[in-house]
Structure formats: C-alpha cells, structure tokens
C-alpha cells in the first residue's frame, strides 16, 4: 500500500515540477538576457560592498571593469552571445587569501541577487551549477 502512495507522490511531484520548468529557452534567456544580467551583477556587487568580510578584497579593484567582466562571464557560461576574455579564475584570485567562508558568502550573495532580480529558481540553480566547479580554480593559488 505504501508503494502505491510513494508512486503517486513521485508522479505528482514530477508533474508539478515539469509544469514549472521552462527548458525551451537557453539559460541566457532565462536569466533575462544581458540587460538583466547587468542588473544582477550590480545587485550582487552592492551586496558585496555591504559585506565587511568581503569588501576588503576589492579595495584596489576598478569596479566598473569588474562589473563588465562578471557580466561577460555570466553571459558566456549561460550560452549568451559573448566570449569571456578576462583572466582565468585561478590567476584572477591568486594570493588574495580567499577562504572557504569568503567563497560561500559570494555564492549566497549571488543567489540572493539572482532572486532579487526576478530569476526563476530553475535558472538560479542552473547558473550556480555552471559556476560551482570554479571553486577549484579560485582556490588553486590561495
């Protein structure tokens, strides 16, 4: 009897999630295109600037250049019409003293920025999934 219940529960879940998911468009489109990606980056950088644990890493950074670079990277990894030409992740972060807690906070700020700019959960998950493997590169030369 419980297996029937299990089957029904899983079937219901599948239908519910399938209805929510929008897999017709590219991730770039689901993020809202370049206009919304730029808004996400700006939202994200404001959160970073407000975070006393993180803001120090950007003391000598040209924020406009960083914003453009992040926008181009998100466009690139999400299948948009850009080619990221900034430095590779390992060199960009070398000897900065980035710890796990900093990386985790950046992920939390990015996800919060995605949600605040109206990105649906399936696209948030997909983008975080594209960026998560960069952990290894970012931490390589710490």
């Amino acid at each position, binding site marked *: 009897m*419980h297996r029937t219940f299990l089957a029904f529960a899983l079937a219901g879940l599948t239908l519910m999630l399938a209805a929510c998911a929008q*897999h017709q468009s590219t991730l770039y489109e689901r993020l809202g295109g370049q206009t919304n990606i730029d808004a996400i980056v700006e939202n994200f950088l404001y959160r970073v600037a407000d975070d006393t644990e993180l803001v120090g890493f950007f003391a000598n950074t040209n924020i406009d250049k960083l914003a453009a670079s992040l926008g181009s990277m998100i466009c690139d990894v999400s299948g948009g019409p850009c080619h990221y030409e900034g430095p590779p992740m390992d060199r960009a972060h070398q000897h900065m003293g980035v710890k*796990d807690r900093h990386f985790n*906070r950046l992920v939390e700020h990015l996800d919060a920025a995605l949600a605040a700019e109206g990105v649906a959960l399936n696209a948030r998950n997909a983008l975080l999934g594209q960026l998560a493997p960069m952990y290894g590169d970012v931490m390589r030369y710490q």
Partner: protein
Amino acid sequence: MMPSPHTPASFTGYLTTLVPRITAFIVLGMILATAPAYAGSRLLATGAVTAIEGAAGGGLSPWAVLSGTPSDEEVGVTATATRAWVDDYRLSVTGASVNVHDRIEVSVARQTLDLETLGGELEQDIYAAKLRLFGDVLYHPWGIWSIGAQHKRVSDNTIPVALGARHTQGNDVYLSASKLLFSAFAGRNVLLNATLRNTSANQGGLLGFGGDQGGRSWVAEGSVGVFITPQWIVGTEYRQKPDNMSAAREDDWQSLYSAYFFNKHLSLTGAWLDLGTIAGLPSQQGGYLSLQAAF
C-alpha cells in the same frame, strides 16, 4: 528496562538519560542568545539533518556531509530530538554533534525503544566520529567522501540475548559519498547519497550484535532527494540490513522524507517509515519527526 533512581547503578543510568537532554537545552539556549551571528558559512542545508544514530545524514542513514554549516576555519554544534512511531514500537533519540573545521564530526546519541506491544524498553548509546576524506557536496566534481565509525552499546542485554544476539556492544564502520546535482530534475537540485557499511548490529544495534545466522556483513544504504526550494527537500531513503538472528527475522528499512530548513539554525524533518519485521512483529510502519538545532 527503565532505570529506577533508587540505586547507585541506576542513578548513573538516570544521569546518562538526562545529560543529552540537558546538553540539548543548553545548546538551544545558546542559539537563542546568539542567533544569527554564529551560523557557519556553508550554504543552507549542506549539513543535512541528523540520522537516528547521531551522524549528519538523512533519517535512517549517515551521509558524507558533516553536521551544521561550519567551513574549514569554523566550528559548529548541533542538537537533535527525534521520535518515530511504528505499529508496535516507539523510538526516541536525543543526540548532539560537533563539527570541527568541516573535517571531523563527533556525535553522541541515545536511543530509547519502547516495546509497546511486547512490553519493556531497550536503550542504546552511540558514540561516533566521521572524517571527511575529500571534496565538497556542492563544489567538487566528485562530491564529498567521508568515512565514519560508530561504537554502540546496549544498556540491558536481556532481550537481545533472549533473541539470540551474541554481543551487547558493536562497532559499525562506513564509507559514504554525497553529491548535489544542480538543476538535475525539472530545474531542481538533486541530492544523491550512497553509504557502504560494515556492521554486526541487529536492528541498528537495539537488538544486540551478531547471531546464529551471521556476524559482520557489508550493507548498502542510499537516498535520493529533490530540493523543491532551497529550504525544502523531499526524498526517499533505503537502508539494507543484516539478518543475523533466526529467532528475529530482520528486513531492510525505507523512508519517504521531507525536511524543511527554516534557517541555518533550525530544521524539521518528517518521514514515513517502513521498517519491516522487528523482533517477530511484522510490517512495522509509521511516522517520524526530528527537530535539529545548529549553531
């Protein structure tokens, strides 16, 4: 059997019953006093919930993740209260764990099984450690891999020995791997866990260790869960079990679970259990609730 507080020996038993509960309340008090300042930096839900043996995991099985949300320079503490009701038994568990630098987790748990139909009570204490070998559930392409050991002691050997158990103490060791697959099912993140355990425990140890049909064996455990939202996961878990005693046939355990993470400090897990035959009473099914506090 319920310790009576009138003899020195059972006074110790009485104390050991109280200590985990007092610890839990102290920890809860500290959380209320300090929240939200001292949450670890790892992301919400990456410490899972507390399995019935005290380790971070699902309900039935330990997972590779370490408890709470501390990262490599942080320390975390959790306290858990759990209750499970099946047809003829009621299990209560209190537990606590410490996670040091997301490298090693040390946990204690006290299980009390009320034999509501047969009469009486069984108690077991579990002292355990889990070591993260490498990886991370989110960031590493191979996920996170850990090994663990659990030392279990049954406090009263009458019932286990009557059923044919060889020992009243035992040690489990396990290897576990966990991995989050981003956007893997209808745009939702999917959490996979697999655990391989070497054990001689009957019904997790509550019915002693070993028997006429066998001693140690390898068993497999696994779970699949879908994060409906970043705070809410539903899934199913399976735990293979040994079958050591001809007088008390034993079945594999399974569950259908739902865990909600209110924040990094508090989670509530509900589950539906199918534990099969326990000590001769068949088809034990019922509900499960577990509350975990972390800081």
